[in-house]
């Protein structure tokens, strides 16, 4: 618990950020920070199964993209006033965040249920590849989905509506994302402390033993997979709002790779790891790209070095400095 104070500091800084930058003509920073938080959310969702459950999903972009598309499609129908379906009863589109976002989570969660139920029969490298295969299927599905722009993607007319909030305002959107991120982090910290989380980590460390103890490990893993998919869907719903645009590029396999990088960079199975990972990854890209168009030739070796020499991720590098004892205990 001693390492809570740097977190409080980070939270404070995050709360103050829009006001600080507003005075410095740096309002665009709010947008970058929002994007970082959204990627962190996607990372957190992947971390649940990857870091705590030991399931390396190489197709998490499928859930992310599906969430984005649900928001995009509903919003398009609302804009043009065309019903989504007329049978068995008429269902129209919506721009209401309170409807569209939970639906995005539901759709991504359902997809995760199907993909997870089939994929979890395999393990190890087979699991990595089968999740990739399913994600590719979804990718090609959206590429050829002519009605919603296919590869060209879908431009949103406006961001979702959320009660008294004006999400079109970057600052208000930023605070909403920050609040959601905090909420998810809080819920996840409870989840992994709860019996469910302990069982999940037990399965990660030794599945055979947990099975021998009588735990239905398959079911535990599947539930974690579905929760993770739904959370990725939420992140997708947010990115659709952030960019006011959705396209299959959100589901392409390098995107799944980015998510893994974010999780591992930040530190697998560290609650706040994906935050550090997302910030580092996106800022690194930003800084390197501003420096040279050949930025990938630097980013690549950095990844290799991090894997070789910083196994616990950046979070451990930071937190480890601050409270070495704790990092040693759960590392």
């Amino acid at each position, binding site marked *: 618990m001693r390492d809570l104070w740097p977190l409080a500091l980070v939270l404070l800084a995050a709360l103050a950020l829009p006001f600080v930058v507003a005075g410095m*003509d*740096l*309002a*665009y920073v709010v*947008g*970058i920070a929002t*994007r970082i938080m959204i990627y962190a959310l996607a990372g957190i969702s992947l971390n649940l199964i990857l870091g705590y459950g030991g399931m390396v999903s190489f197709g998490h972009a499928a859930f992310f993209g599906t969430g984005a598309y649900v928001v995009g499609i509903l919003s398009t129908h609302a804009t043009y006033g065309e019903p989504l379906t007329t049978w068995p009863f008429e269902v129209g589109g919506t721009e209401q965040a309170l409807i569209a976002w939970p639906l995005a989570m539901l759709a991504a969660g359902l997809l995760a249920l199907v993909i997870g139920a089939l994929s979890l029969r395999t393990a190890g490298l087979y699991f990595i590849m089968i999740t990739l295969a399913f994600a590719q299927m979804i990718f*090609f599905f959206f*590429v*050829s989905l*002519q009605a919603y*722009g*296919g*590869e*060209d*993607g879908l*431009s949103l007319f406006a961001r979702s509506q959320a009660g008294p909030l004006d999400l079109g305002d970057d600052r208000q959107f930023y605070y909403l994302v920050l609040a959601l991120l905090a909420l998810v982090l809080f819920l996840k910290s409870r989840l992994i402390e709860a019996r469910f989380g302990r069982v999940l980590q037990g399965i990660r460390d030794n599945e055979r033993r947990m099975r021998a103890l009588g735990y239905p490990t398959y079911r535990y893993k599947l539930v974690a997979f579905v929760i993770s998919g739904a959370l990725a869907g939420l992140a997708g719903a947010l*990115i659709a709002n*952030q*960019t*006011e*645009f959705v*396209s299959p*590029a*959100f589901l392409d396999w390098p995107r799944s790779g980015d998510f893994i990088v974010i999780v591992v960079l930040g530190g697998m199975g560290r609650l706040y790891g994906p935050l550090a990972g997302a910030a580092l990854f996106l800022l690194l890209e930003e800084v390197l*790209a*501003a420096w040279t*168009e*050949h*930025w*990938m030739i630097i980013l690549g070796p950095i990844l290799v070095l991090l894997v070789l020499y910083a196994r616990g991720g950046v979070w451990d590098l930071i937190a480890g400095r601050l409270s070495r004892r704790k990092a040693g205990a759960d590392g």
Partner: protein
Amino acid sequence: MTKGLLGTRRLLGLAAAAALLAAPASAAEPVKIGMITTLSGGGSALGIDVRDGFQLALDEEGGMLGGHKVELVVEDDGRKPDKAKEIADRMVARDKVQIMTGIIWSNLAIAVVPKVTKDGVFYVSPNAGPSLLAGKGCHRNYFNVAWQNDNLHEAMGKHVKDQGFEKLYILAPNYPAGKDALSGFKRFYGDDVIGEVYTKLGQKDYAAEIAALRDAKPDAVFFFLPGGMGISFLKQYSQAGLMNDVPVFGPAFSFDQTILGAVGDAALGVVNSSQWNKDIDNAANKAFVESFQKAYGRLPSLYASQGYDAARLIASALKAVGGDLSKADAFRAALKAAEFDSVRGSFKFGANHHPVQDIYVREVVKEGDLLTNKIIGKAFTDHADAYAGDCKM
């Protein structure tokens, strides 16, 4: 170390303050132009050529366009829509760019253009021309100096029809630009084709399609397969021994200077459509081809010509308003008037701010060891796009 950093920051601060102080005093504040384009990963050859073409126009005037100092901010979008969007937001908010350009891909343009034009920024497209932005989604601040995506396919449809081919086999990737390409082709050829095939995006092996094609016994083939897809298709088509029996036709994308070197002799003699070629006979084009080669040591591509024209168009409009972009209406009118010497010769904008231009028919020839194109005819004179009617500006 820390001291040094602080020192630098203070210096920067001073410079910024000086700039702020100087700003009202001189009217020659540089015009800021933001270029978002693809400089890394797949397809970067296109972005690099657009940038180099644009830069050339800038360099020719000693860092100015239309007699006004220009500050060009170039950023790499990596072909990711959300990244392009973020760069655009930042360019508007931080760099205060007043003009934007550079995007290569339609999906990135759809992600970026509606938002920035709404914010009062002028966008001059040097390549991407999706139907949405030419029709329903057109905007008074959006100008496309290259084409509407369908233009070259339409030209090929007309040419093939004029040549009297009757049994056409047409193929394109299964994505919107592919569907648009084939419907653009059919708009002028007619709906009566003997085979219409959609391939996988990014596909490399076309043996199955080529076998089916041979079985259908067409008298000509039209294909739209941009980038590496087209290179693979042409090589395999030639290896299958079909090149002499069934002629292929395509838009310039697969026969451009960026690609011909990789296709090799398989492309020799293939007829394709383009709005530009290096042998179009006018002074502006001659000068452009020569100075591009001098500056970069390679032949300019179609994309380079489009980047160059984008810069020259902006230059003409900047000149008209004396570099003062606060006169937005005058600047818009000047862009619309398009009074610059295009390397394409005659050029003007239609009502939807898309080109009304000639589309040529070219043939791939060899000049020494180098494959390039030669104009052999004209498919359209003053051709406008099919979506202008949907545009309510």
